[in-house]
C-alpha cells in the first residue's frame, strides 16, 4: 500500500464516531489502518474480527482530515473493502450486493422497488420509532434510512426534458450538465428542480443526460469493485456526449465518488465535476445575481410554524456540513456565502461543527446503531441552535436529519441547501 505510514499517535481516535461508539481500539482508525496494512502485506490472516473492524468505518473522512502525517485512513479502509470484494458472501452480503450492484444502477427498477416497499411497509410491524424492523436491513439502508424514503411523485427525468433552456428574457451565457444521483433524481426532486431554475435564471442551458446512472458509491463503499468500475465506465460514456460542459452534482457522496474515486475510465469526467453550490457562488461572485425576496415558499418548509419571513424577522438557518466535503473546503464556504447573501436568511452555526450525522453513503446500512446515535446527536444540536431550518448540501444528510428531528418531535426541519439558495 502506498502513502505515508501511520505514526500510531492516536490523534484520529479523537474524531472517529465508530471509536466513540465502541470505545474499543480495534474499531478506531489507528487499528483499522494497521489491520488493513497487515492483511494487505500478508502478515495477518483476516478473521471475523477483521471484517467487523473494516465494516465499522463510517467513511466520514474525519481521520483523514485530522492526520498530521497525511495518512488517508478512509481510503485505506475503502481499498480494504474492495480487496474483500466477493470473498465472503454471507446472506446479508448477498443482499447488499443485490441492492448496490444490481438494483441501484437501474433507476426505473429502483423506483418501482422502493415504491412497492413503501406500499407494503405498513404490513410489517413497526418498532417504537416508526422505522421498519423486518424489511431486510440492506434494502432499507440503501434507501438512506431505515424506513422507505418518500419518493417524489414523478422522477426528475419525467418532469424535465433532456435539455432545459434559459427563459427568453435571459441572455444565454453557457452550458452545464447535471449529475442528479439517485436521491436528486428520485427522492429529493425539489432540490434538483430548484437548481435547474437557478441555473437557467442565470443564463445557463442545463443538459440532463437521461442515461446517467448511480455513481457507484454504494457498490464501492460495500466493497464491490466490479460493479463500481461498471458504473464509472457507464457514466464516463454518458457524459462524454458533452465533453466541454462542467458536470454539476448536488450530493456530497456523489461528488466525492465522481471527483476523487473515478480514477480509471472516469478520470476525464472526474476533472469536470463541480459542486452545484460552488458553481453558483462562482457565477454570482463574477457576474452578480440579484435574488429577489421570494414569495416565501421557504415558509412552507416549516410546516408547523409558518410565519411571514422578512429581512427584519429572517429565517434562521443552520448549516450541516456533509462529511464527504471534508476534503473540499471551498464547498463549506460557498454555501455559507450563498446563504448569507439572502437578506431573509440569518445563519447560525451548529454546536460541534463538522460532526457526522450518520446519513452519508451507506453508513446506516453498515452500522445502523452508530448511524442512529449520530443522527440523534445531530438533531439535538439543531434543536439547541434554535434554527428554523437545518440545511445540508447532501440529500442523504437531509433525509437522516429529518428522520431524527421528527423522532424528537422538533419543530425544525432539514432541507437541501439548493432548496434555499436556488430561490
Amino acid at each position, binding site marked *: 500500500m502506498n502513502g505515508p505510514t501511520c505514526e*500510531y*499517535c492516536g490523534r484520529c*481516535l*479523537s474524531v472517529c464516531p465508530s471509536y466513540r461508539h465502541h470505545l474499543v481500539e480495534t474499531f478506531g482508525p489507528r*487499528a483499522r489502518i494497521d489491520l488493513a496494512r497487515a492483511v494487505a502485506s500478508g502478515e495477518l490472516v483476516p478473521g471475523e474480527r477483521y471484517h467487523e*473492524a473494516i465494516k465499522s468505518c463510517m467513511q466520514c473522512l474525519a481521520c483523514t482530515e485530522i492526520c498530521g502525517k497525511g495518512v488517508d485512513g478512509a481510503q485505506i479502509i475503502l481499498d480494504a473493502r474492495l480487496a474483500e470484494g466477493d470473498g465472503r458472501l454471507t446472506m446479508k452480503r448477498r443482499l447488499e450486493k443485490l441492492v448496490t450492484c444490481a438494483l441501484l444502477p437501474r433507476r426505473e427498477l429502483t423506483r418501482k422497488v422502493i415504491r412497492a416497499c413503501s406500499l407494503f411497509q405498513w404490513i410489517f410491524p413497526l418498532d417504537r420509532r416508526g422505522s421498519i424492523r423486518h424489511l431486510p436491513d440492506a434494502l432499507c439502508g440503501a434507501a438512506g434510512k431505515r424506513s422507505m424514503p418518500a419518493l417524489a411523485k414523478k422522477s426528475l427525468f419525467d418532469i424535465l426534458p433532456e435539455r432545459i433552456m434559459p427563459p427568453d428574457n435571459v441572455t444565454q451565457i453557457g452550458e452545464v450538465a447535471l449529475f442528479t444521483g439517485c436521491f436528486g433524481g428520485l427522492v429529493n426532486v425539489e432540490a434538483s428542480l430548484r437548481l435547474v431554475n437557478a441555473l437557467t435564471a442565470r443564463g445557463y442551458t442545463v443538459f440532463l443526460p437521461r442515461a446517467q446512472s448511480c455513481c457507484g458509491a454504494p457498490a464501492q463503499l460495500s466493497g464491490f469493485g466490479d460493479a463500481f468500475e461498471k458504473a464509472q465506465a457507464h457514466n464516463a460514456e454518458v457524459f462524454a456526449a458533452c465533453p466541454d460542459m462542467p458536470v454539476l452534482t448536488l450530493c456530497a457522496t456523489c461528488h466525492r465518488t465522481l471527483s476523487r474515486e473515478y480514477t480509471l475510465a472516469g478520470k476525464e469526467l472526474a476533472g469536470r465535476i463541480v459542486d452545484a453550490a460552488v458553481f453558483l457562488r462562482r457565477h454570482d461572485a463574477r457576474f452578480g445575481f440579484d435574488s429577489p425576496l421570494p414569495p416565501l415558499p421557504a415558509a412552507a418548509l416549516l410546516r408547523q410554524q409558518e410565519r411571514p419571513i422578512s429581512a427584519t424577522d429572517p429565517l434562521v438557518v443552520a448549516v450541516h456540513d456533509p462529511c464527504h466535503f471534508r476534503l473540499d473546503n471551498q464547498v463549506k464556504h460557498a454555501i455559507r456565502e450563498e446563504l448569507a447573501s439572502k437578506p431573509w436568511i440569518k445563519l447560525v452555526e451548529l454546536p460541534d461543527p463538522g460532526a457526522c450525522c450518520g446519513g452519508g453513503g451507506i453508513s446506516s446500512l453498515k452500522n445502523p446503531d452508530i448511524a442512529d446515535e449520530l443522527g440523534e446527536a445531530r438533531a439535538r444540536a439543531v434543536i439547541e441552535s434554535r434554527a428554523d431550518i437545518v440545511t445540508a448540501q447532501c440529500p442523504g444528510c437531509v433525509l437522516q436529519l429529518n428522520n431524527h428531528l421528527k423522532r424528537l418531535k422538533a419543530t425544525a426541519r432539514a432541507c437541501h441547501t439548493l432548496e434555499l439558495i436556488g430561490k
Partner: protein
Amino acid sequence: MSLPSGIADELKKILGPEGFLESEEDLRSFAYDLFASHKPDAVALPATVEEVSAVMRLCNQHHVPVYPRGSGTSLAGSPVPVLGGLVLCSSRMNKILEVSVTDRLARVQAGCVTGNLQKAAAEKGLMYPPNPTSCLYSTIGGNVSTNAGGASGAKYGVTRDYLLGLTVVLPGGEIVRMGNRCQKDVTGFDLPRLLCGSEGLLGFIAEVTVKLVPLPESIRTALAYFKDAAEAGSVVTDIVSHRILPCTLELMDGVFLKTVAEVYGVPCPEGAGAALLIEVDGPDMVLEGQMKTIEEICNAHHAVGMEFAHSEEERDILWKARRGGTAALVRQADRLVTLDYAVPISLLPRALKIMDKLAAETHCNVVTIAHAADGNLHPMVLYSPSKPDEAAAYDAFCDASTRAILELGGTISGEHGIGLEKKAYMPMQLGDEQMRIMRGICRLFDPYGIMNPGKLER
C-alpha cells in the same frame, strides 16, 4: 502465546464477551503506542471498578502480567505489554461523575478523555489547566500515570498539582481510595501524588478527583522572531526574571519555522532563526502592562519581527505555526521521535546550543521546540529507521544528548515519562539509592511484580 485456558475462561466470566478480547486482530490493536509495539496475550476492557478488582485478583494469583492502558498515546512505550500478559484498558470507564463548582473539583473515571474533562469544567466557568498536546485523545488515567504536563506548565503546573484523590485497584484486588475532596490535607504520606507518574507500576488507577480553577478573564497572544534559538532562549529567561509568568511560551527553532513556511506558506521575516509564541492570561487590566513589558524585552533582544493577536481568529493564525509545524515535519520523515528533556530555566539557552552542536557532530537531523518557560525542551529527531547510518546517528544523538542534559543538572524526561525509551538512563540520573527505594516501593504495592513488568529495571 496465550493465557492458560482456565484463566481466560475466568476472565470471560468476569468481563463478559464484550470486555474480554483475544482474537489476533484485537491483540494487534492493543500492542502499540507511539514508541514501541508488542502483542499481549489478551485484552480486558472492564466497565466498573469491581470488574477491575476481580481481574487484578485473578492475575495476581496466577502471576499474569498486567499492563494498564488508556488511549495508548504514550511517546515512550510505557503501556506496551513487552512480556505479553493482559492489557487492562480503561477506555470503557470514561464517565464524568461530577463537576462541583462549590468544592472546585471534578471526579471522573480513568478512561475519560482529558479534553472532555476540560470541556465539562469550562461549561461551569472552571478550568482544568494541565494541557498535554494529546489532551483531545489521551485519558486522564494515562495523564495521571505519566504526570502529564503540556504548554501551560510554567504557570499552571502539571497533572500532579491538581490531584486531590484517586481510586486505585492494587494487584491483590483491594480497592483503595487515596486522598479526598479536601483542598488541604496533610494526613499521612501523599499517596495520590506518589501514584502520579508511577507509569502503571503500582496499581490500576480507576477514578480521579482533580482540583479546578476559575477560567481566566482573558488571554493575549504574541509571536516574536529572533536571529537564533539561543537568543530566543535568553528572552525567556529575561521574561521570567521580570516576574511575568506566561501561560504559554513556546520556542521554535529555525528549521521548524522554515518547514512551516514551506508547507503552509506562512511568511516568516527575513533573518528569523527562531520564534517565541507568548501568551499571558488573567484580568484584562493586568495583561496590557505585561504585554508592553514583553514587547520591550523582545526589542532589547533585537527581535526581527513581532505580531500580536487582537481576536480569536488572529490568535489561531499565530498558533498555526506551532500547531502545523510538527505535522509538517512529520510528513518529511519516515519517523519522528520527540525527546523530552528539562533543564533549569537559566540553562535553557545553553541546552539549546548543546543540542545544535551534538546534532551537527552526530550528523543527525534534529529540530528543537520547547515549552520554554518551564525549561522543557523537545529535540525532534527525523530519520529513517531502515537506513543503518541514520539509525546509528539517531542512537548516537540520543546517547550524547542525554548525557549532556544530565551533566547540566537536567532531567531525561520532563513530561513524557520513562517507559522503554529511557529505561536504561534512569539509574544514571537517580543513582543506586533512589532506584533501590523505588524498587522497594514497587514490591510493597506489588509483591509478585505483575504490574507493567519489563519497564523499571528490576
